[in-house]
């Protein structure tokens, strides 16, 4: 097993008076993928947002290479690539312009060949000059995935990455994800669907409460798939 790069210990989050998850712990090493599973509202998005420091957890630590990430939030943000429910694209800009802007906003304008490579990987070369607002939902999702790939960030945080993707696009995503992991990257993906990568570890959120456990509490149960 790869040495742990990301070490989450006893993470807890309350949202709107409700304990979303509590005492959540896991470790993730280079080249590993963590799949977050659980019902709607079990806290998958909240966990992703907490890891991205968008949401402030109430307890627990998140460590990268042993150092608490909250000590240097800006550096941490530079290590992330984020894919949320919303694509994060401007409708009036073209596909190419959106990708360029996204990279410039990360302070790192990409070389042309890398940009073309990302477009090709998701079969967007023909759509590169089109404004995003005319694209279908699946096409927009592909642009967002291209943005993630382009960022070359070590940690990918993905919320329902397979949403709206057709079969070829799912294959493209899987291939891109495998390349990322093979290069030593990490990924955490919240998903309803099977990611189709057998090496994934799974973390299930929002276990149903028994008659004795406190209401609204969610704890993580980690399972390793062979």
């Amino acid at each position: 097993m790869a040495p742990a790069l990301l070490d989450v210990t006893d993470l807890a989050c309350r949202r709107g008076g409700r304990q979303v998850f509590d005492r959540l712990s896991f470790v993730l090493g280079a080249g590993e993928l963590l799949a977050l599973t659980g019902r709607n509202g079990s806290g998958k998005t909240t966990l992703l947002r907490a890891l991205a420091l968008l949401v402030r957890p109430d307890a627990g630590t998140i460590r990268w290479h042993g150092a608490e990430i909250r000590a240097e939030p800006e550096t941490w943000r530079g290590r992330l690539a984020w894919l949320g429910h919303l694509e994060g694209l401007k409708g009036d800009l073209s596909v190419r312009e959106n990708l360029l802007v996204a990279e410039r906003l990360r302070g790192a304008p990409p070389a042309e060949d890398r940009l073309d490579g990302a477009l090709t990987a998701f079969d967007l070369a023909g759509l590169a000059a089109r404004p995003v607002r005319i694209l279908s939902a699946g096409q927009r999702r592909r642009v967002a995935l291209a943005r993630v790939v382009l960022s070359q960030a070590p940690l990918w945080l993905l919320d329902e990455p397979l949403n709206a993707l057709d079969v070829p696009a799912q294959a493209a995503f899987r291939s891109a994800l495998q390349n990322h992991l093979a290069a030593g990257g990490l990924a955490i993906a919240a998903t309803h669907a099977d990611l189709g990568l057998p090496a994934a570890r799974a973390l299930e959120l929002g276990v149903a409460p028994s008659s004795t456990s406190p209401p609204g509490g969610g704890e993580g149960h980690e399972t390793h798939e062979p």
Partner: protein
Amino acid sequence: MTGFIALVARDLRLVWRRPGDVAVVLAFFVVATVLFPLGIGPESNLLARIAAGVLWCAALFASLLSLDRLFAADYEDGTLDLLLLAPWPLELAALAKCLAHWIVTGLPLAVLAPFLGIAFGLDRPSLWALAATLFVGTPTLSLIGGLAAALTLGARRSGALLALLALPLCVPTLIFGAGAIETLAAGESFTTHLAILGALALVALATTPWAMAAALRQAGE
């Protein structure tokens, strides 16, 4: 720095693709200004007397019009999350948004207002004073308005609430901006007023980016 410039450039490019958004704000400025002679009467001495105040107030209202979309558009398409996740200070990102807003709103207003001032019978020096005070004063309006927009992001009745929050805070700028032109009409120099407007802009620059960033982080939670 790359990120700051990229953000300003992006917002300017977006406005360039939809120039109607800016045109509407400027049209509102003209219409609102024209209402005053219609409501008060076209007596030229009176109009020259109230011109500074009317034009400044109309500029203030016109600036507010486009503000509730300042962050809301980014919030709705998910790009606000990307700004929150950018590896450079959020305060600078908020500043970049306000700068872009000023370039497409405050700056055109400062250019347009003197032409309306002619219709109110202001003399040449007063017209220059009007342009100068608006040029120095409208950045403050963009910053305070940006703060109000960030505070009301996702709130109910955000448009009216934004105005309620922003307008009292804009009063000092309004007083010195309009007052400068009246001082000039009384035969004195208005450089003190201009200097105070500049100082107000600096105070806004020093305080609002921090507050905007704090408010935007709340919206991200």
